[in-house]
């Protein structure tokens, strides 16, 4: 497990105006999620940010399309065939943390009008600070 702060975990251009700082890398614990609030009135969005065992940081939407509750950051982190995953805390769907894809729907459908998969967010860790980019 990496304890040092990694540098850039997602390749990108230099920090531009779309990156929003949300917390320090040290605020994240291995294999745990936190929720982050990206403000902005109508365009406000809640993001679930996860630090994996190897130090990599991944982010998906915090809103769970199967329950309608904002809870994804509280799910259990693990792997499925090597793919890092989080399990929805309420109805136990398993999502890829890398692609947001629902890998196991546990026999349920998303709520009406909600997508099957989770949106993902780009993550940039720079100078010990975790930045998120809104979905493009």
């Amino acid at each position, binding site marked *: 497990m990496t304890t040092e702060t990694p540098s850039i975990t997602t390749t990108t251009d230099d920090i531009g105006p779309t990156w929003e700082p949300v917390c320090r890398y040290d605020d994240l*614990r291995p294999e745990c999620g936190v929720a982050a609030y990206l403000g902005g009135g109508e365009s406000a969005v809640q993001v679930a940010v996860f630090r994996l065992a190897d130090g990599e940081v991944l982010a998906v939407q915090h*809103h769970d399309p199967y329950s309608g*509750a904002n*809870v994804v950051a509280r799910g*259990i982190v693990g*792997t*499925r*065939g*090597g793919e890092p995953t989080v399990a929805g*805390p309420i109805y136990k769907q398993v999502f890829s943390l890398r692609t947001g894809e629902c890998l196991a729907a546990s026999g349920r459908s998303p709520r009406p009008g909600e997508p099957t998969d989770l949106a993902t967010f780009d993550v940039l860790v720079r100078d010990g600070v975790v930045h998120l980019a809104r979905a493009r």
Partner: protein
Amino acid sequence: MGAQIDLGGGEALKRRINDLGIAVRCNSQTTQMRPRRGSQDVARLDFADGGTLPVDVVVVATGITARDDLVRSAGLATGARGGAIVDEGCRTQDPDVWAIGEVACIDGKVVGLVAPGYAMAEVVVDRLLGGDATVPAPDTATKLKLQGVDVASFGDAFGRTEGAVEIVWADPIGGTYKKLVMSDDARTLLGGVFVGDIAPYASLRPMLGRELPGDPGAFLLPEGTGAPALELPDEATVCSCNNVTAGTIRSAVTEHGCTDVESVKSHTTAGTVCGSCLPLVKKLTNTELVRAGVEVSNALCEHFDLSRAQLFDAVRVAELHTFSAIIERFGRVPEDAAGPGRGCDICRPTVASILASQGNGHVLEGEQATLQDTNDALLANIQKDGTYSVVPRIPGGEITPAGLIAIGEVAQDFGLYTKITGGARIDMFGARAEQLPEIWGRLVAHGFESGHAYGKSLRTVKSCVGSTWCRYGVQDSMSMAVLLELRYRGLRSPHKLKIGVSGCARECAEARGKDVGVIATEKGWNLYVGGNGGFTPRHADLLAEDLSDDDLLRAVDRFLMYYIRCADRLQRTAAWVADLEGGIDELRRVVLEDSLGIGADLDAAMARHVDAYEDEWKAVLDDPEKLRRFSSFVNAPAMPDPDLAWADRRGQIRPATPEDHASGTTLLRSPTAARTDLETIR
């Protein structure tokens, strides 16, 4: 019993019952019940043959009869021995009235069994839909459970078919009697009677009306002495409650992808009513799995090839204390991977439970925090909107007026919805994750702990008030309930645990519907185990009688610890006891007679649990690192989730629905949901 077993069976049954210390008199017509002199109490029975019997209590059992008064008052005819007379379509004389089951008299007979009742229900449904189904010849196969005596019969138990031959195995010393009724060529099975040993019943009954392979007598020999293996034909009925055939069970495996008994049960409904066919369902399922080349696996998930019980022992013996070490040592490494992966939502909580059962400190300590299932992760019950409910522990359900007021004030101050739970506790709903520590702090100040109303652990000990107040109570069930709840609180197990304590045999605490049921007797406590409510209710089995307080605690200690060590993941005690090889007798040997020699080990494990118990919620309040988990947003730790909204229901909050949002119905916010400013690190 006269309808089920023949004379030989009756003799064997009588011997069995005599062995239990109960005398049996047949054909004894009672002419008089005589009272004690100068009293209303019964003292003696007089029989027609001149014999007498001194008695204290008379129990009259007359079987089930139809409510004929109801039938007659509707102007319908009843049969000579009761029941509404119906035709072969279950219709009474009134074309708008139907009768099925024990109130229907068809061909002059009323059949008091569940399978014919279901068959008749099917017929009525078909008739109502315009069909012309008729009631089939009733399947009168029965398996009776007397206290400690097995009795079963099926088909033509009396050999009334013309030319029928009977093959009998009788062991008067062992009290077993087994009989097969065969066709005149001794090839086709027509019926059977089993007393004392009903092992052949499950596999033979579906063969009714079919040719048996080989010598029929071989099926009556004691188990393992050479009965030929029976290959059931596809059309043979396995589950007669739900009319499921062997073929349906096989295709559940071969065509519908079922890979274990549980999935076969839910796919076919076999074994979901009386459960007596489950051993056969299991056998068929496993045979089919093996035939399909599927290894019958008890692997936990893709990360561990071990079952929960195997992993429990492995972790204990290897003395491992972290998930990382456990998966490194025992995890499965896929062929194309360098390591075993990082677990999942199945194995992580299982390991969390195993570690907690073996005493590894606070469930949110270090890496353990990442293993906990939804509720254990925040030490409260998550609800559908992502908020939590808090259920203060109220041992035994006993609470002071001041305590009631304190809980009421907490609920009022935080704007929580309150209700009394099925376990006789007070549940407060609508708390946000970031509010939990503050709520716990208030509870701690009033002498409460939050309580494990969640998780795979002891929930509550339900009790009646017992002998201190109740005029019928024979023991102090209230004190025993408090003692048990404080002893086993926080104990992590394969599934949730519920305990009930009743102060007398009236059983007001419904203890026999619990994993552990304690019922007071004049001499002490009767201990029942393996009860369940829920989806498949099961009455608990009697494990021991008239125990002293100390003996009761030791027996419960060992029962719970043995269960925690041996059971599968999410296997309640009911299923565990039912599946246990050797059944309740084996459990009695292990728990009461220490037949495995692990008694002291189990006692020590429970003593460690009791000694190490701490208020897990207070421990969070005392630890800033653990407290950090209880924030809404990492960049705005106290800001309520702005999407949360409530509506009014009978004067309390309920989660707002999409319809509320769409219609713009007034949404309430809980009083303390004052919005704090975004705290960003920018």
